[in-house]
């Protein structure tokens, strides 16, 4: 598709939105074409959320929007005016006192313990996706976890350890 016929939109055409990001209310002026992912990474210096494909195919950009896991690359920031966003940087705060003394959410601690990552690039997405999946409450068995976590690619191949970590947290919740 050629876009040259469209008249260039003024670079300062911005829209005001309010987001609560990791518990902090922020009023932001954002261009209508800016994705939630680019907003986080490029404007707000929240680079924990990763860009892996920009096409919703890899899950590296998974964040929680009002507690639901979404691919931040597929959402325009202006669509989420008023929403509550949790990124990997805010997971520790989400634990509501459930965070360990190290400030980590139990899923973060479990990922470290089970070596559920290698290069670490897909990890923030895997973590947010895990929390979103646990919120959904459907996955109980290893097979169900594997299925429900299949939107998050890990090229280092840490899948079995990711399932171990999630299972650990699930069992902790059940206790």
């Amino acid at each position, binding site marked *: 598709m050629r876009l040259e016929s469209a008249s260039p939109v003024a670079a300062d055409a911005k829209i005001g939105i309010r987001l609560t990001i990791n518990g902090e209310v922020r009023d932001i002026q954002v261009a209508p074409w*800016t994705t939630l992912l680019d907003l986080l990474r490029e404007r707000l210096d*929240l680079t924990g959320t990763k860009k892996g*494909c920009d096409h919703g195919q890899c899950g590296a950009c998974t964040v929680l929007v009002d507690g639901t896991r979404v691919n931040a690359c597929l959402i325009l920031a202006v669509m989420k005016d008023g929403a509550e966003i949790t990124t990997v940087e805010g997971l520790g705060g989400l634990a509501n006192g459930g965070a360990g003394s190290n400030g980590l959410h139990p899923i973060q601690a479990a*990922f470290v313990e089970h*070596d559920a*990552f290698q290069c670490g690039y897909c990890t923030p997405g895997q973590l947010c996706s895990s929390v979103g999946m646990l919120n959904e409450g459907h996955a109980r068995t290893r097979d169900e976890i594997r299925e429900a*976590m299949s939107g998050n690619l890990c*090229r*280092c191949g840490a899948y079995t350890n*990711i399932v171990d970590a999630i299972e650990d947290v699930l069992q902790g919740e059940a206790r």
Partner: protein
Amino acid sequence: MTQHFSTTGHDTFVGSPRSRVDGPAKVTGLAKYAAEFTASDLAHGYVVSSAIAKGRITRIDARAAEAVPGVVKVLTHENRDRTAWLDYNYQDAVAPPGSPFRALYDDAILYSGQPVALVIAEDFETARYAATLVRVKYDTETPVTDVRQVEDEAYVPPKKRNGIKPPPKPWGDADAAFDNAPIQLRQDYRLAIEHHNPMEPHASTVVYEGDGKYTVYDKIQGVSNSQAYIASVFGLKKDDVRVMNPYLGGGFGSGLRPQYQLFLAMLAARDLKRSVRVVLTRDQMWTFSYRPDALQTVSLGADRDGGLQALRHDATGATSHFEDYQEVVVNWAGVLYKCDNVALTYKLAKLDTHTPSDMRAPGAVTGVFAIEIAMDELAYETGVDPIALRLRNYSDVDATAGGKLFGSKALKSCFEQGAERFGWAKRTPEPRSMRDGRELVGWGMATGVWESMMMQTNARAVLTADGKLEVGNTAGEIGTGTYTILAQIAADSLGLPMEDVTTKLGDTSLPEAPVSGGSWTAASSGTAVMKACRSVAAQVFVLARQMEASPLANVDFERVVFADGRIAVADDPSRSVSLVEAMRAGGMDRIEAVESATPDKDFNSAYEAYTHSAVFVEVKIDEELGQVRLTRVVSAIAAGKILNPKTARSQILGGVVMGIGSALEEESMMDHRLGRFMNHNLGEYHVPVNADIYDIDVIFVDEEDKANPLGVKGLGEIGIVGTAAAIANAVFHATGKRMRHLPITVDKLL
């Protein structure tokens, strides 16, 4: 002389499972990757990729792009500043022979997706939008991208690639022996072109520091390589270019060579005298390195008991028109198996693509896949169990190196322990003889092998007066756990708790290490760090002994141990001095040592060094749907000393998962009419997802090796080698269909 590692007598951390020291940074988002560093004057570059595979650019019109508010400049071959003239200047540390690709060099199009312009703008979205407005006109020629089309023009590369062993001279008479052999098998094998696809797209952030100085954050598996490349290409002093990359979001070989985004970001930063970041899109991850296609024929002649009488492995690998990429494809059969008549040949054929590059276990994945399926075919032809067949032809020497002994080879233990764990004895060998409900069950196995290497490497250790130790060099942490194992080695070398040790990597201000690849980092950087720490230990020991009324007076360095932050007499631990006390007494704020580790020449002249594996897999195949599920894997590994069983296991898991991808899913599909990869996204290039991966059991067998003082051999690649063959062999066992072309997809099974 090689001294075995346990200088402290207390290997507290080495050998024990430890969580990654960089784990907290990676699970909280604090670990920063190349595209995540910034500068106040940062501009964003977006690459315009060639729409054709071969021809010339006749016109580039960037006026519409440049008119977009926020666009700073559009760089093309017509307006870019000059860089170095000679090929030599562009040859990085791991470049194959040839003329390295130069982005925006001239009007020639050498491959599809080649960068033809860089749009630089104040923000990312503006650069991306303006890039769509750059109009490029081409004179198009017909590309050749199918290796079968140029097989007749294949040639033996005239110039050998540094570090890549060419095939050995043939021995015996393989062709005559084959013709006379009672059992004769000759088949063609082929794997698909694969792309590394690390999760982190390639990216470079060049921060312009003013006064001709740059700080560069580059996605690279070794920052020294980028620094030397930048200095050489842009005519800068190394001191004016600091390259850093503390974390790499996966490389698998794609980050060994400086890629074109680095060149473009540097070019723009130098031109604009401001900071520039260039990040490739996912589809642009198909516009540089890849695992090449290879045409392979394996010929096995054997007696009726499976004893090999003749062995031929002939391969033609793809390369580009501008470089002779080479990897070790055909040597492996000669390393693994005893045979009196062997011929191994390796040729190249040129295609209109970018130069291929090393991808996890380059060459071994390609060659061992073919050999290990052929061995399974021989097992069926002779009725000999696949393990028994491999033991019958087991080689105790490396025939490709004139019969040198192996430094160690615990492959038999891999067979034994792997088979035991897997339950191989319960296998009924006939195809289609095992079933689980509506699914056919197949059990297959294969051998894996990879060279164990060590490279000249430097490292620094710094002990400060507070008792904290910092170690490091320029090596890349590529996800393998290098931060962690180096901290373990350092902590043990000075008898400190791991919390008191910090590892610094991926920064050219540190002593130089080679790129992290080839599975050599643990042996190389590990040894260098150990030596630097021991040098610090010797210095602090001198201070301790010089203290007034020192408990260590008149004690030799050889008679003390370093443990719990103290230096103690080995046979009288009550006589001890703490490191902190010794430094204070000596009036030292810091003790620093830089040491170099080099391969052991005596060892290498006597021995060859390889890691080995035995991979066992179970597949379950729905006969009507042709769907393959890989329900069980046991990978038994012989790789010398295991420094950290936790991260080591992850290395093997990762290799196995990529092997599963190679066997069942991964395939970059070239449209030969266009010379273009068609499935250049993660929706259509399938890599394993969580639901594809069931249980993977990793066994490390005991193996003592003396190639380096740590006894370590390296683990980054061995996990993938042999995995695809084991899967193909299991598929044959399940279905009776012999799969010689990867990936094994539903259409091939129905």
